């Protein structure tokens, strides 16, 4: 089958997921003896094309439309590219921007869409694997259709390496401006504040398992005892219990401390994206099936309201 992937970039940077899609796409193209095409839309397409030219890529389509992502433009361009390239499988990133155009493209093409896939296979037809119920179970989905679209979970496939010899062609899209009814007016960095969790050697990180805002005192006590900094998963920031600058994860900060102690955090993919590079990960969680244990080096499968006070006591706090 012919596979077409769509790269992602932001503010001048090609995002890693673009190169991961190439790996996922190459696997399927190989399994079916087909070609791998990739497209990059907007920005410095020539420079991006150079970086996308990795081993196994057959063709790169550059589309010189705009500087930054706009979902109306992307939806039109990708739909037109599909007509021109005629792929059997369209692979897009399961990123925030991916989720802002992939469903529209699939729907416009009338192709089935499977989002956030973590594995792909082909045996007469496409099979996609995805996770359910906060990553507690996996499900396989057979796609009964000749053509399909998927969005691929970031960081599941390795980035494609080596320099390739793809043809690079510029594609002239025909944009209907009257259908562009959204305008990106700028970007804003959020966060700031006094705490820099990215600078800490030891993070005591707390999640929804803490239940009540008052219970955070215990976590700050522990952090003080350990001379550590307090960070958190998203729900605590959403609740305004802690400042945004303490949020670890996809939409917060990426941290790489020597020791990361996750307390009452389930380990959702968007959280793990921000802390999996920590040297030593310790998880305290009552649920032995919590996905945080998949990436932890040490675990305690017990109630944090028993373990944390005992730990404070251990250090004479």
């Amino acid at each position, binding site marked *: 089958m012919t596979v077409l992937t769509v790269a992602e970039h932001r503010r001048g940077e090609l995002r890693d997921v673009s190169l991961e899609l190439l790996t996922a796409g190459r696997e399927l193209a190989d399994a079916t003896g087909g070609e791998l095409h990739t497209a990059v839309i907007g920005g410095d397409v020539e420079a991006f094309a150079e970086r996308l030219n990795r081993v196994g890529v057959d063709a790169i389509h550059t589309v010189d439309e705009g500087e930054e992502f706009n979902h109306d433009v992307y939806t039109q361009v990708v739909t037109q590219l599909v007509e021109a390239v005629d792929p059997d499988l369209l692979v897009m990133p399961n990123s925030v921007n991916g989720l802002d155009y992939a469903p529209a493209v699939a729907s416009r093409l009338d192709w089935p*869409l499977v989002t956030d896939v973590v594995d792909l296979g082909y045996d007469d037809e496409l099979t996609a694997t995805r996770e359910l119920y906060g*990553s507690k*179970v996996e*499900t396989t989905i057979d796609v009964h259709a000749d053509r399909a679209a998927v969005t691929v979970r970031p960081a599941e496939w390795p980035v494609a390496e080596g320099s390739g010899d793809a043809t690079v062609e510029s594609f002239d899209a025909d944009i209907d401006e009257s259908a562009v009814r959204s305008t990106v007016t700028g970007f804003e960095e959020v966060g700031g504040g006094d705490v820099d969790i990215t600078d800490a050697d030891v993070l005591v990180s707390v999640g929804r398992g803490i239940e009540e805002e008052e219970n955070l005192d215990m976590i700050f006590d522990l952090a003080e005892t350990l001379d550590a900094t307090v960070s958190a998963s998203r729900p605590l920031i959403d609740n305004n219990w802690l400042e945004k600058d303490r949020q670890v994860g996809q939409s917060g900060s990426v941290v790489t401390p020597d020791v990361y102690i996750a307390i009452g955090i389930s380990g959702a993919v968007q959280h793990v*994206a921000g802390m999996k590079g920590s040297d030593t990960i310790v998880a305290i969680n009552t649920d032995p099936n919590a996905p945080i*244990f998949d990436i932890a080096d040490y*675990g305690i499968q017990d109630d944090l309201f028993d373990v944390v006070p*005992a730990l404070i006591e251990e250090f004479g706090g």
Partner: protein
Amino acid sequence: MKILVTVKEVAHVDDEFEIDGLGIDDRYVTYDLNEWDDYAVEAAVQIQEAGDDVEVVAVTIGDADTEDTIRQALAKGADRAIRVWDDALADAGLLDPETKARLIAAVAAEEDPDLVLTGVQSADDGFGATGVTLAEHLGFEWGAVVNALDLDREAGIAHVHRELEGSVEELTDVELPAVLTIQTGINEPRYASLRGIRQAQSKELAEYSLSDLDLTPADVESSLEQTDLYEPESESEATVFEGSAEETASELAGLLREKGVGS
């Protein structure tokens, strides 16, 4: 102005559970209003409270058991609700975003909303795609993963922030009518008051079958088929400390001291 807000009843699986065929054994499942939809309802109700002449209609696709969940939306301030269900849906297989969007689009065709608010994703399925698919069906503009919303009704524009990765937000102007998928943290969802809960009992809750929406079972057939459900093989290489809290805490303390923490 009319706002449609979609709400889903989601399943939460207990710590210990058993798989039953292609689902989780019902004994290990509890149901609740999707976290993201709670924020979407709040966003809709805040617009209704701030403006004149705003009606908020909650829509769900779900069987009769999901009625308690959509009543939560009514108790929090939605004016009325619509529940779509049909026996054909129970047999149709995977209720994927395309199928759901088709059903909600049929409701929207009757209601003619100016704004549709959905959640970014459902906590159980996590497709994250129903809202944008719906926009495409309706020919509406859209915005995904919205964590700030400022509506200019006169100009017919929603000024939104889209939450991107890495603490960066995109500022976007979206023309109405539009579908926005709402991210957690955009507001502080209220708890339903006792009065709200009482009032919800007398608010209108309409029920639509496929034929009420001029749809047939063929319209809700998906080409996606779920074929397996299993617990993933644990990739865990974690050393798990066993024993009482005192014992595990002591082992962890030993480890931390070894790493020079807290000593």
